[in-house]
């Protein structure tokens, strides 16, 4: 369904009355407000205290809440994930930070075999309100072990919810909902947009998990995306608009549970769909999304559902290679043109 979100895309000029803040600031406000309102919430992770988090999301929170609410850990990702399980199952609401999603490989057993499954294995009795936050995505030259997009791993695991905001407004509203959710939520923040500014109202608000947001209305084709690629898609849409092509941009926002209905509704209107993500294309969630679209809107499709993801390689270090390795405004626009010509 279309929500009334007015979150602006980056660079877009915002009206006077708006309060423009950075995305990492929006996340910090969400954490701050939830730490304030619920004494069972605590933040735990590496360098989230004195350092303030690698991307400064937790900056100032140690000073404000002290070392029992903002807990620095040794470099022990499996411990961080497992400690969250032990604390959550005994009544706490840990918000655990992994500095990079790339490091979650170390914690996959605790996240997948323990956090995600305990409730079910224990007969639906245990409740594990955990948020696992991590920075994802490429574009800043940290190379193959710091720039991956691994959301497909988590979305494939029953027991996990997965959230991937694209704007400061969504980031704040979704993180607050994730912290209040009684499930294990993997909350993935694209490191390339922490410094993006966008409107975030003073007044408290929540954005429910599992609701997509149509970020641009269009009639000729639908782009289904999430995280930073939504912003690229919006830019591509502006370019295409000059050419008379009006693209609708559906931001899934939450990958599980996935609001595929919003995407379907759009495709039934535009009859053409392009799925875009920064993760490696092969085996990425684009396959799930495209498959569901053709399953549920088969008779509406004027062309096969197209997918655009990263090339099949680890993220290269060298700048020109890195930026060419994942979808960009240009390649998205080109894909839409191709889609209108019948696609693939």
């Amino acid at each position, binding site marked *: 369904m279309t929500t009334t979100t007015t979150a602006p895309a980056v660079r877009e000029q915002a009206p006077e009355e708006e309060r423009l803040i950075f995305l990492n600031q929006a996340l910090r406000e969400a954490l701050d407000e939830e730490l304030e309102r619920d004494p069972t919430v*605590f933040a735990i992770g590496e360098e989230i205290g004195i350092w303030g988090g690698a991307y400064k999301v937790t900056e100032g929170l140690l000073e404000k809440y002290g070392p*029992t609410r903002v*807990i620095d*850990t*040794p470099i*022990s990702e*499996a*411990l961080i*994930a*497992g*400690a*969250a*399980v*032990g*604390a*959550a*199952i*005994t*009544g*706490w609401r*840990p918000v655990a930070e992994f500095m990079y999603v790339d490091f979650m490989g170390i914690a996959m*057993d*605790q996240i997948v*075999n*323990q956090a995600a499954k*305990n*409730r*079910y*294995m*224990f*007969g*639906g*009795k*245990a*409740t594990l*309100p955990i948020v696992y936050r991590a920075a994802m995505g490429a574009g800043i030259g940290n190379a193959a072990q710091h720039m991956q997009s691994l959301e497909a791993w988590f979305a494939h695991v*029953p*027991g996990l*919810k997965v959230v991937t905001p694209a704007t400061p407004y969504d980031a704040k509203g979704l993180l607050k909902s994730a912290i209040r959710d*009684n*499930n294990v939520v993997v909350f993935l923040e694209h490191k390339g947009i922490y410094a993006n500014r966008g409107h975030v109202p003073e007044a408290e608000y929540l954005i429910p998990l599992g609701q997509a947001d149509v970020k641009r209305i269009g009639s000729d084709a639908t782009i289904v995306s999430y995280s930073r690629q939504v912003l690229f898609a919006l830019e591509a849409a502006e370019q295409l608009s000059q050419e008379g092509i009006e693209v609708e941009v559906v931001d899934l926002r939450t990958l599980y549970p996935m609001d595929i209905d919003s995407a379907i509704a759009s495709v039934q209107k535009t009859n053409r769909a392009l799925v875009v993500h920064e993760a490696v294309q092969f085996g990425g969630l684009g396959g799930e999304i495209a498959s569901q679209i053709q399953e549920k809107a088969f008779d509406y499709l004027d062309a096969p559902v197209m997918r655009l993801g990263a090339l099949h390689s680890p993220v290269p270090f060298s700048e020109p290679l890195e930026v060419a390795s994942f979808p960009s405004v240009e390649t998205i626009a080109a894909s839409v043109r191709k889609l209108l010509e019948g696609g693939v």
Partner: protein
Amino acid sequence: MRQRRELPDEAISDKIASAQFMTMTTSSRRQRVTLMASRKSSTGSKRKVQRPPREKLLWMYRTMMRIRRFEEAAEDAFRNARMRGALHFYIGEEATATGVCADLRTDDYITSTHRGHGHCIAKGGQLNKMMAELFGRVTGYCGGKGGSMHIADLDIGILGANGIVGAGIPIAAGAGLGVKLSGEDGVVVCFFGDGAGPTGAFHEGVNFAAVKNLPVIFVCENNHYGMATTSANSNAGPSIAARAVAYGIHGASVDGNDVFAVHAVALEAIDRARNGGGPTLIEADTYRFKGHTVHDMAAYRAKKELEEWLKKDPIERFKKTVSTEKLLDAEDMTGIDSEVEREVADAVEFAEASPYPELDSIEQGVYAD
């Protein structure tokens, strides 16, 4: 450069030190680690040992018998193809869970392992719900969805058996963190096997508990084998308890088949944890009488080795001690025997009379509202 964190109070460490022990003094004078290298069977020790009160003795015997009879019944059901899945028997190790849990409160926590029936029973688990779970019935602890390796009873602090070796250790550290944050005086007992000694989870969990001085008691049940791999071939170093030195925490080795020795060591560790003294690493020397799983005939073990250990049957030793020391009379125990027999038989009946979960419940209980 290195600032020291809170340290175990000398009094307590001296108390532990009163048993045979060795001390390792490091460059930092302020750090004192005591390690009981060999608290051998308390019965064998010189000084007159003080025994638990009658009520506790009866509880200990009943608990050990409940574990053994429960598993014998489960094995019987399995052999008759009335039950399936992976079953890991605790038989032979009853004294460890019993001695450790004897003084735990209902609001204390334990994390368990794939070989978890004994821990669950010693912490107060209900046999009928456990048995029903093994039978995959809806009346089981997990409504049949977990099975033997995933039994939990959160109401009495049992945070779950675990199918992943070592995985309970970080979870126990997290539960301990929660207790510390709450400011209460609860403790967490983390059971794990010698096979978990080499896991990264062990190191990350114990190091964190030590750094944060958490009320967690790590109990390694060293039954000398993983599956066919010996503890010595998987764990480097003199012993697992000796690792306490590396973490700057208290460590103790104990005869895991002597419920009194285990109980004494556990009491000290629980005391210390309740009083902010931080974690303890206990290594209990024991042995599984059965194979690794119900499928395993344990051909890799010398017949003689098993025989030697059978002589150290923890239940027989308990009986011997309480009768030599005239602490309980035969009737006390025969009475318990028949009560346990009945309880176990009822549990099997309850389980087999219970229905399987509904097919449409497969996707229920994955997510909370």
